[in-house]
């Protein structure tokens, strides 16, 4: 099947969604997705950030679709023409959706562990306005510990339902879900109950924002000061393929290996995630490639001072300490 996205044609299998077709092309034309997760069946369609315009339905029925559609849940038709970043309407709608998502989001990025690898942060940076038009109190919740390793901070949640799908599909039993309705709805275990399961830690990885955080990593470090390294071990529960996040000599966090869309390649078990935090536990494969656009790679892999600094001895001297620290990292 041939589908054209922003003027770029691509051949895809029947049944592919517009979003996945766009991911096959890659680059800037891939719609952002906050709730869709390719490894989770039934996810998507909720956040509305991936809205696109279908300007031609298919070869057979060339009528455009009347409304913007969620690209993550709309399957392609042969000859379909889709506009994403080339349509002002889509860009405008996406801006609106981002504004809505940020309405009740606390924007506490400076103290949030997710900062630096947060999808909402990226999205807000790309599409958000500098100032909010919302002049009311944001909704707030108490932090809850769901299990001894996971903390839920509902205030930051954007209700993507990914963790609910994860618990349904990856773990044996789901102990949490959505309570209430509308903007009072919250992820909760109802009567506070621990989410205790060998694979429960994956809900941290799938969370696009900082609502679910790893308690063994909370406030330990900013992600851009840590070095991701791929490693594996023989695990009887999962594939054992992880990314270790080093701070100096210490492994301070273990996560699944995330691809460019922030989706883990394979889900990992809680033993790997929370209990194996020594280099000796792992077989190191090498540094994890992180997109050069990410703030995580901005600090350490390559350090290039501004040209003017390099050529000016006075500035060189003034920044000496900084250079030493950066090259040491």
């Amino acid at each position, binding site marked *: 099947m041939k589908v054209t996205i922003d003027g770029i044609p691509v051949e895809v299998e029947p049944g592919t969604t517009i979003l996945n077709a766009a991911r096959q092309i890659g680059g800037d034309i891939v719609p952002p997705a906050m709730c869709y997760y390719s490894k989770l069946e039934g996810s998507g369609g909720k*956040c509305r950030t991936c809205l696109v315009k279908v300007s031609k339905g298919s070869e057979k029925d060339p009528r455009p679709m009347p409304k913007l559609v969620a690209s993550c849940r709309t399957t392609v038709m042969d000859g379909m023409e889709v506009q994403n970043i080339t349509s002002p309407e889509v860009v405008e709608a996406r801006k609106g959706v981002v504004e809505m998502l940020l309405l009740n989001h606390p924007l506490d990025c400076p103290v949030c562990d997710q900062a630096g690898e947060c999808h909402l942060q990226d999205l807000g940076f790309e599409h958000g306005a500098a100032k909010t038009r919302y002049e009311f109190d944001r909704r707030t919740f108490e932090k809850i510990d769901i299990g001894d390793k996971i903390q839920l901070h509902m205030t930051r949640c954007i209700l993507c339902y990914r963790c609910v799908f994860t618990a349904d599909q990856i773990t044996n039993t789901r102990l949490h879900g959505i309570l209430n309705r509308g903007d009072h709805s919250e992820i909760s275990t109802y009567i506070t109950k621990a989410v205790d399961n060998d694979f429960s830690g994956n809900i941290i990885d799938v969370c696009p924002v900082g609502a679910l955080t790893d308690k063994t990593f909370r406030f330990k470090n900013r992600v851009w000061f840590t070095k991701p390294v791929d490693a594996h071990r023989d695990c009887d529960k999962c594939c054992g393929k992880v990314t270790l996040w080093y701070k100096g000599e210490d492994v301070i966090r273990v996560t699944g290996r995330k691809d460019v869309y922030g989706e883990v390649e394979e889900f990992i078990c809680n033993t790997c995630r929370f209990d194996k935090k020594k280099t000796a536990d792992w077989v190191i494969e090498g540094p994890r490639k992180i997109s050069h656009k990410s703030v995580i790679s901005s600090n350490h892999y390559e350090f290039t001072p501004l040209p003017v600094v390099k050529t000016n001895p006075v500035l060189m001297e003034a920044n000496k300490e900084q250079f030493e620290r950066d090259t040491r990292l």
Partner: protein
Amino acid sequence: MGRKLLLEHINVPGINTFDVYRSKGGYAAVEKALKTMSPDEVVEEVKKSGLRGRGGAGFPTGMKWSFLAKPEGVPRYLVCNADESEPGTFKDRYLMTYIPHLLIEGMIVSSFALGANTSYIYVRGEMMPQIRILEKAIAEAKAKGFLGKNILGSGYDLELYVQPGGGAYICGEETALLESLEGKRGNPRIKPPFPAIAGLYGRPTVVNNVESIAAVVPIVNEGGDEYAKLGIGRSTGTKLISAGGNLKKPGVYEIDLGLPVEEFLYSDEYCGGIANGKRLKAVVAGGSSVPILPANLILKTINNEPRLMSYESLADGGFITGTMMGSGGFIAYDEDACIVRNTWNFARFYHHESCGQCSPCREGTGWMEKVLHRLEHGHGKMSDMDLLVDVSKKIEGNTICPLGDAAAWPVASAIRHFRDEFEWHVTNGAEATTRNYGLAHYADPLPKLETAG
């Protein structure tokens, strides 16, 4: 006086019991359909009748039925949507309370036409008396052999169940209703697949409004062609209108579609005019989710033609100067009504009822509600009106289900038509909390339309 098809015997004492209903010609449609017609013939009659869904969207019922997938060996379901919770609409409750057997009869005929052997009536949780009435009626019909195995010796089996909902407005959306009926959280599903392909328990399902199903009874009794003679244009048949607000005679009326709005409002046969000798200020013509119109625009279209109670005429002028038939919740406001307060009230309702699944509706409805609350209480700003219009545009069309649109339209239309009243609330904040803006020019005759070119 229009013909009554649904409410003909509404005043007969005891019409809610099987015996009286039967003696007035009830269940004739079941006998006719099951004994003399094939299911496809019933569908054909409904198609010919031009009956349009009475729940709000006005989608032709016959066409909806013909879309139903019919794979071999897979059960099909008919679900009656009795989750009527739109502010201003109470026609289904009226029908279920006073003449429940009409709905049961319609369900039997419709289920027969669709080949469904199990059908559900999903009733809103707050309507507990109606749930009991329907269950009693079902028991009566079953005792007389109109439900259960081998109905009237035709070999057709049907079990009919009443399912109380949890009382959520969103469960009136057909896919949310199906989720709720399956025992899950009532979140609308993402379409496609449509219920006609994969509905209840993943099976082909038709979801129809109470009134649509009841209307099948006269269609089968008299034939689709006869039914299509009533009404006007593509709006055929009769429609129940629940008239509320500041009227002399509020209540549920059965009208022929095509009745002029003015006649409906002012004639003694229907609403009898505005109560207490007041003047009309505005009308919400089809339940809270349709655009509100000022008096002059509801009585006349922008082309100065009288506006009729029909799907087309009410929608004349699009969203700029028109409104929608919706579910028939006709709310009239007199000169003492405050449009800002009313808009806030609606926005509060949609904020409360948004399911919270998709972000524009979840966050946007709450935002609009808060801004309107501020306006109503005299703390608004001049920029708030543009903000509201902008927010409503960001919600409209970008959501999974039509609740987002339903929340956006009343706000956008109120600001479009009553902007001066909103501005007065800003400039005279303190005064706005003690008195209303009044009628202003909303009931003045329409200015002559300047035709372009």
